[in-house]
């Protein structure tokens, strides 16, 4: 049996379709209800409660903690203020992305790093000779994401933290009920939202406190399907789908640099870090690929389906396969995630495009399979994110 997360006792009875999937060796609900619609709308219009405990979490402490993290991450960790949270990738020596995650500065010399894949060995290897300790508290720390417009009110009600003053990508230590928690204003939905980190032993009580306190605000346990649509709208990368971690990729072509993933903004080339040399070179040369959004042209889509006497069939659940993208007859890229955006009312996709075809506004075509036949639908290259509400930051 796969493990349940620390919330499993609560989430299991809620999962009406017994629709589970694997996430880092844990069971994770794809959706709790029989369709995920309501769960998605909770993210955008109320508050969704998402169990994100399967994330890997490492606590890094020591007088060399900043030096160490600066060596590993592409971002400038020295510039990370106390109680700030930073998002960024880390790379191998060839400048290819191994993983991405958030870094919370818990104290002068202590941080929590989250990642999608296990990274303990890589971290330890890079910590050699430095005064740091790295503690893997993935199993002992439970994590919940509370995402959506009413999430602030809920947390204000159930915790002693002053969420009104907690800025985007900052954290606060607080108590919910009397459970000590860390609240970070972060998330994977591109909406106003928070992530709550607590001792796994307190997980069930924490769940209950949030559910009780959130009832009047439309709190809704939400699964991966809903989250996936939201993160595509927010233009956020999914490891293993939108890119393959460099240490898992079997061939070079499967590896990506931060520039190729649209993370150039997170690379501080002037500081020393693993992969710096390679990235400096790439930056001078210009990256071969870009990671962009595609908006499919409705008329074109309608036409493609009309050939078969059908209206467009839209992916309500985000797909995660690789789909070719063309400019004329030539393949110029591939889309790795896509879905119908219920909020934007658009069919959107995340795509890797050769730099020459990645300019905003470029017209391309994306393959769509209609009635067992491969067709091309027109699409336009757009900047990410697709959806970026004011409330996310304010």
């Amino acid at each position, binding site marked *: 049996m*796969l493990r349940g997360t620390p919330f499993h006792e609560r989430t299991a009875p809620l999962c009406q379709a017994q629709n589970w999937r*694997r996430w880092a060796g844990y069971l994770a609900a794809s959706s709790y209800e029989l369709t995920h619609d309501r769960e998605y709308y909770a993210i955008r219009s109320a508050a969704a409660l998402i169990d994100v405990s399967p994330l890997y979490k490492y606590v890094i402490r020591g007088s060399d903690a900043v030096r160490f993290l600066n060596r590993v991450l592409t971002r400038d960790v020295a510039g990370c203020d106390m109680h700030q949270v930073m998002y960024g990738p880390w790379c191998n020596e060839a400048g290819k992305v191994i993983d991405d995650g958030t870094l919370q500065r818990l104290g002068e010399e202590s941080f929590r790093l989250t990642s999608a894949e296990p990274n303990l*060995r890589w971290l330890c290897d890079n910590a050699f000779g430095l005064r740091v300790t790295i503690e893997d508290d993935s199993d002992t720390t439970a994590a919940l994401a509370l995402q959506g417009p009413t999430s602030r009110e809920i947390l204000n009600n159930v915790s002693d933290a002053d969420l009104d003053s907690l800025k985007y990508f900052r954290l606060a230590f607080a108590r919910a009920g009397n459970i000590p928690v860390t609240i970070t204003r972060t998330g994977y939905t591109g909406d106003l939202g928070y992530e709550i980190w607590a001792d796994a032993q307190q997980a069930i009580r924490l769940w209950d406190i949030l559910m009780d306190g959130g009832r009047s605000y439309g709190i809704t346990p939400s699964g991966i399907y809903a989250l996936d649509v939201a993160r595509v709208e927010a233009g956020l990368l999914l490891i293993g789908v939108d890119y393959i971690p460099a240490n*898992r990729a079997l061939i070079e072509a499967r590896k990506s640099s931060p520039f190729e993933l649209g993370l150039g903004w997170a690379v501080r080339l002037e500081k020393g870090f693993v992969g710096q040399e390679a990235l400096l070179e790439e930056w001078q040369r210009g990256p071969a690929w870009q990671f962009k959004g595609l908006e499919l042209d409705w008329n074109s889509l309608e036409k493609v389906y009309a050939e078969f006497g059908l209206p467009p069939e839209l992916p309500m659940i985000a797909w995660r396969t690789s789909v070719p993208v063309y400019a004329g007859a030539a393949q110029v890229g591939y889309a790795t995630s896509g879905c119908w955006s219920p909020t934007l009312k658009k069919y959107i996709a995340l795509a890797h495009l050769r730099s020459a075809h990645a300019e905003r506004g470029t017209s391309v075509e994306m393959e769509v399979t209609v009635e067992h036949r491969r067709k091309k639908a027109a699409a336009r290259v757009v900047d990410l994110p697709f959806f970026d509400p004011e409330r996310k930051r304010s």
Partner: protein
Amino acid sequence: MAAEKRYDAVIIGGGHNGLVTAAYLARAGKRVLVLERRHLVGGSAVTEEIVPGFKFSALSYVVSLLRPEIIRDLELPRHGLELLPLESTMTPMPNGDYLVRWADHDLTRRELYRHSPRDAEAYDDFGKLMFHLAFAMKSILGIVPPNPTSLNPKDLLSLLKLGKHYLGLPAEQFYALCKLMTMSAADFLDEWFETEPLKATMSASGVIGTFLGVRSPGTAYVLLHHYMGEIDGVFRAWGFARGGTGAVSESIAAAAREFGVEVRTEATVAQVLAKNNRAVGVALDDGEEIHARVVVSGVDPKLTFLKMVDPQHLPTDFLHAIRRFKIRGSSGKVNLALGELPNFTCLPGVGPHLRGAISISPSLEYMERAYDDAKYGNFSRRPYMDIIIPSMIDPGMAPPGKHVMSIFVQWAPFELNGGWNDEQREAFGNAVVDTLAEFAPNLKNAIIHRHVVTPWDMQEEYGLTQGNIFHGELSLHQLFFMRPVHRWADYRTPLKHLYQCGSGTHPGGGITGASGRLAALNILKDW
């Protein structure tokens, strides 16, 4: 009647390689006769019903890396080959804990994590590197190894191509390959892991069939073999044959027969006949002579050249090299008929862990001490064991509710102090059962019958010189263009029209059929 007939080829020994050669030759239209000394074909790959109702894979017990091209070319599934998965490996530990590697990645990760969080990750990194290396090595296993001393342009070209191939590898892979060739399994694994039962169990695959300990340099290379199986993963090249290992031989024999191969059992070849420095046939021990255009020996090089060929047909240097060829046997086999399943203290009851391999290899020190005994001419008092319970995978192997257990044991030197005799065989059997009973206390009472095969028995009963299961040790100086001896690694021999096709030739070892196939292809080239 057979004496009247003239064959294109006569194969000495109906082991799986001999059968593969026979089948490929017959497939090319040759008239082929296989001569097998025993009453059944298969050589070391046989299933024998030693106690009524209990079928034992008497010697070889898993199908390791049977070449997919052979499965395809000979259409073995149509001839009855069914390979069943062996998906887990359990290592019980003396402290009552255990380590299991499951078929499922997440489960294995969690299990390794329990022992060492870093090892859980290193295991994936290691697997990826080994996958690359196995992929790189594959190219040499599928070809006749080029002779670096030859000035023949074909050899040179082939050598250059290989050189380019290896020097073209990414640095990390090239250096790892260099290390694999020169390091001990233990040292190599020490660079990656800290969990003792993990390292010990992985290292075991580096010493199986060798007279080396896990700390002996040169043993790291064999670690690759496990991963070679994974590349051909869809073929399930690593597994258990339904009906026991004999079923593999049976299916090859059936394919061979369909191509027209004639198989004679209970026909013991005493001598290779030669005229004008050419092999012309064989003489059986009852005096019968069988003539054929070529003679192919599937038995080991020592048996072939030192027992079957008149030395006057062979150059002195060659004979010297064959005499020097190292073929020390180091393993034994214990087959048990069981009234009930073993109940392991660390994981009690019946569970999926009994459907995979069970490895008695709790630590590197345990492995090394087991080897130390053998170094000085004793069998290990507490041996390394690789165990499977075939009846858990294929219920047809034992009567309902009963079981057979196959125990591969190392080390048991052929040159035992005082020599092997019945008393020593019993003592050896006891050492095995006593050690295993420390982990599964009900074992002793569950035994209905015990069948012990010592290296001596392997030589006498199965014709393996010194009981070496690979027809010659897989050490670096006996591999590639030096297997079995330099200049004669292309399946040819100094005696024209005499060929070799057994495990003593490149690439050697295990039920792969690779030697047999390459031999046949080369024989046909000369035709």
